[in-house]
């Protein structure tokens, strides 16, 4: 897999070896955007533009721009882009998010959180 062009992105947290992440979910969000791009759902330039818009909007809201929320913006931009492309709709996302939340709350510690089939009795 070729490396995504990080230079095209607004100030991504990185070290000489590539992007760095503060938590596993950030790496997941990063990887999803890279894969959707590779599958041709959007160009990297388009993605960089959407991410820059999201960051600019946050700045306009007065949020401190110290890189700590980078992947919050990344995820928000990705959610909006897939919705605009009608790949995954906002309603679907909301519904699925709530299903995961319910499943996670109903799952005893140490058990895999499973979705679908599903809601075990609390």
């Amino acid at each position, binding site marked *: 897999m070729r490396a995504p062009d990080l230079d095209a992105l607004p100030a991504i947290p990185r070290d000489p070896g590539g992007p760095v992440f503060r938590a596993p979910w950030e790496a997941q969000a990063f990887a999803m955007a890279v894969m959707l791009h590779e599958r041709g759902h959007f160009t990297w330039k388009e993605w960089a533009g959407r991410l820059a818009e999201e960051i600019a909007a946050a700045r306009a809201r007065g949020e401190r721009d110290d890189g700590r929320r980078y992947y919050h913006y990344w995820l928000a931009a990705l959610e909006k882009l897939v919705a605009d492309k009608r790949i995954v709709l906002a309603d679907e*996302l909301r519904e699925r998010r709530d299903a995961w939340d319910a499943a996670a709350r109903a799952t005893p510690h140490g058990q895999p959180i499973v979705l679908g089939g599903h809601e075990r009795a609390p």
Partner: protein
Amino acid sequence: MSHEHEHHHHHHDDDDVQEHRAHDAPLTDVELRVRALESLLVDKGLVDPKALDALIDTYETKVGPRNGARVVAHAWVDPDYKRRLLEDGTAAVAEFGFVGRQSEKLVVVENTPAVHNVVVCTLCSCYPWAVLGLPPVWYKSAPYRARAVIDPRGVLQELGVEVPQTAEVRVWDSTAEIRYMVLPERPPGTEKLGEEELAALVTRDAMIGVATVAAPAGGTRR
């Protein structure tokens, strides 16, 4: 459709910005949204989960501060620190600035010629990623977990770790309260290396007990 994921009981992110997580919710808002998007993309056939996992795994060492390697190297050169580490892992690791907000205890178990420790689980928040980096993809798979408990020696052999028959294999499964990390054996031929060089040798896999630490290539043995 079913998905297996680690779940977080506690807030591992030291982010002090708002995370929108209710007190009783195991997953934060962003974690839930990432899961939602990922599972929908997989359901729709737009993303191959294996390819996605493989990509994420390339960032193995890029998640969290990965203090574990520094902790291991320090324990190798400072016997007093090693004693503290084995006595109270949580406190000893905290000396390195890793102060998790989680209330679980971190227990460090030492590999010796007589005992080889392996950590399983970790479906859940038990995986101390802030210490170890990202968990390996296969780690979460049900077959690995099951086999690691039933036949740890066989699993280790497949992963390239030969544990001598004379050595005992201990398997540690995280609980809601306790997470584990392995203190691997210091490889021979590293007597002259400094702490930083030693830390660079310590891999995530060694700290979960599924690999040994190799001496640097071309390293001189005494």
